[in-house]
């Protein structure tokens, strides 16, 4: 049996574990029933190693609870970035990395033959041409090596841009990188720049910081590329049962939707199978593969631009794209002399809805959206001020009234059961 390694080959598996530890904060070994005991122990050990100070252990009858507890608004570096810094590699990978950079950092260009000869003669390192060629090709894609073709021969040189020179040359860049390394999006790339030159973020904190998004960033470049190239993508979701093979779904991606209040990010796209727009949570997607060019992309995009303005959040509702929607109207009571901040809140948070003064101390929000249900989570933040709810659907209205009665009882009120 192979021993434990801090490094990982497969990011997907780690994403799933870290997410569970981090989000639920109360997973025990037996909860991961689809995994082997060894996998659980290894993943747990890696997470513990990356998260160090943020781990919590609690013993219960069911076993030892491992969780991550981070006050993410008051940290200077997202510890989940460590997952990205754990990619496994071979001995040849690390050796060739430093040797090729060492040879090429004099600025001269060299052929493959010259490079392998130098490795052999000056460094006493024997590599076959194919191994070196593959590494050069890989590093050309990474932008570390520049390739020029002269006649039939390829010449290789080191890319001229240096992180430390950039940081020194461009005044303020260091501060910008400190900020953007923690702020969305792709902060981990900024963090990799900082790590390379030994800079630490000593200036900024991010409030309402959904650090877990950083793990989903692994998927995002492929989606953005598909959007730019007007291509469809194939997605596979994580499965919850052992040996279950997830079904593949085809989406024509339009945009990444980010909820900065609920901590979820989605791909919004057109689903050819159902012939409607829909959204898919990024944290539930295991795998994304580029599919084919969509010849109808521009027309779909135009329709998307129209439709997205009728989403309160991310839901396109249950109706077909052309279906009718009932506007929902929620009326709030406000003391206009003392509670101007409530009116300000409504204006600030109304999104695509409209707020109008409809009476003395009464303000009505009208939302003509695909899925009025989506508004209700937010509407309940105004509990204590909601005078009436009209429109939407009967189910939504009844659920709200029922919720208030249940909550009233929950907090000690005596509800009259005969009230309808």
């Amino acid at each position, binding site marked *: 049996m192979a021993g434990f390694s801090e490094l990982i080959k497969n990011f997907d598996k780690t994403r799933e574990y870290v997410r569970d530890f981090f989000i639920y904060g109360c997973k025990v070994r037996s909860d991961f029933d689809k995994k082997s005991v060894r996998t659980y122990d290894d993943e747990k050990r890696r997470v513990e190693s990356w998260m160090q100070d943020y781990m919590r252990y609690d013993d219960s009858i069911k076993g030892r609870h491992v969780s991550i507890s981070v006050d993410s608004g008051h940290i200077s570096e997202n510890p989940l970035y460590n997952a990205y810094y*754990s990619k496994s590699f071979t001995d040849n990978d690390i050796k060739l990395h430093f040797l090729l950079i060492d040879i090429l950092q004099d600025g001269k260009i060299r052929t493959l033959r010259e490079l392998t000869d130098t490795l052999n003669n000056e460094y006493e390192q024997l590599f076959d041409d194919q191994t070196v060629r593959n590494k050069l090709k890989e590093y050309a894609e990474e932008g*570390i090596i520049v390739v020029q073709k002269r006649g039939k021969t390829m010449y290789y040189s080191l890319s001229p841009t240096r992180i430390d020179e950039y940081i020194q040359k461009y005044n303020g860049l260091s501060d910008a990188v400190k900020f953007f390394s923690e702020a969305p999006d792709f902060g981990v790339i900024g963090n990799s720049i900082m790590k390379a030159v030994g800079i630490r973020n000593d200036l900024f904190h991010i*409030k309402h910081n959904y650090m877990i998004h950083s793990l989903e960033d692994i998927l995002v470049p492929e989606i953005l590329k598909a959007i730019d190239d007007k291509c469809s993508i194939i997605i596979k979701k994580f499965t919850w049962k052992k040996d279950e093979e997830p079904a593949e779904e085809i989406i024509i991606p339009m945009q990444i939707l980010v909820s900065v209040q609920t901590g979820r990010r989605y791909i919004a796209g057109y689903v050819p199978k159902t012939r409607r727009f829909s959204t898919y949570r990024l944290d539930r997607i295991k795998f994304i593969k580029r599919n084919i060019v969509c010849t109808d992309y521009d027309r779909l995009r135009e329709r998307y631009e129209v439709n997205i303005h009728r989403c309160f959040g991310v839901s396109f509702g249950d109706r077909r794209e052309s279906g009718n929607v009932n506007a929902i109207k929620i009326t709030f009571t406000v003391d206009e002399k003392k509670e101007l901040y409530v009116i300000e809140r409504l204006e600030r948070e109304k999104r695509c809805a409209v707020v109008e003064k409809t009476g003395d101390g009464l303000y009505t929000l009208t939302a003509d959206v695909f899925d009025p249900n989506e508004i209700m989570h937010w509407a309940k933040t105004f509990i204590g001020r909601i005078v009436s709810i009209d429109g939407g659907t009967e189910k939504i209205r009844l659920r709200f009234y029922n919720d208030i009665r249940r909550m009233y009882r929950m907090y000690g009120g005596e509800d009259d059961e005969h009230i309808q």
Partner: protein
Amino acid sequence: MNIFSEIYGTYFRIAAKLLENEVIDEKTVRETVLRDGFRDSILFLPQKLIPSGEDWGLFKRDNNNMLRRITKKAPEKVLTKLQNMWLKSKLSDPRIRLFLEDNTITELEAELADIKPLYRHEHFKLTDRYADHDDYSDEKYIANFHEALDAVKKRKIVDISFTSGHGKHVSGRFVMLKIEFSPKNGKFRAYCYKLSNDKIKNSGLINIGRIDKITDTGRIFRTPVSMDNYFSSRKCSTPAVIRVTNERNGVERFMLEFAPYAKHTVRDLEKNEYVVELWYDEQDETEVLIMLLSFGPVIEILGPEKLRSQAKERLDRQYELLYGKNAQ
């Protein structure tokens, strides 16, 4: 080209750092691994760096029992294509002007002219960011941000006049400690200590967007500041205790939405419920309360009594609005 690549990895970074020196000793290797590695790296990494038969061969042992690198120079820190693409994207972010002067942005744009940005602003849509977010392109805002950032970096004692959240004009002497950004609010704020006779009077937060003027007093605040103590002093004294049920997928929704908060979760196996202790900044209590209420009957605030009674008060008012006073 992938973010998840060994070239950005911790092991490569430690090796690069050690290869900056022509000669090192084993102690330096171990200290560097302990400082810059993962928690368990000390068990795995030194033997790959120190000649041992199973090492990577990056160092050779010399006659003085020191470790001599096999490379000739310290490794260059090449900016990769991905890092360039990231920088290019950030140049289009309106917040870049808070950090770089316009001529620096122009120079960097020219430098990265041939680079494709990693993403464009329109690739993403924030569905629920508040509409009254800061105007990052406002010249006065930019100037105040520059002043505030400089004050934070140098721990300057500054005089600030600003408009408070309640619309009152406030001025005073402060030391600015850190800058906070909220994607939800789209606002920058500065963590401060208010000073009186050069001594700390109390702590507070100032919205950069509400600052009228910052004036440098020319003096530096030299008293050491522990940010841990600063943040602890602003925390609630007792955590909110929340019962979370799994109705309407409540557990997952709750855990995800409250992921930014420090919390401790205990599962009640018999009831299949969760009890979560949640720590928050005292000043955010109303925000936390309304977030909790938005979950409806799926969760219950068990304590502390002050928070629970605020919820009860709002529910009493709501019940009365829907069913009239007589129903109570």
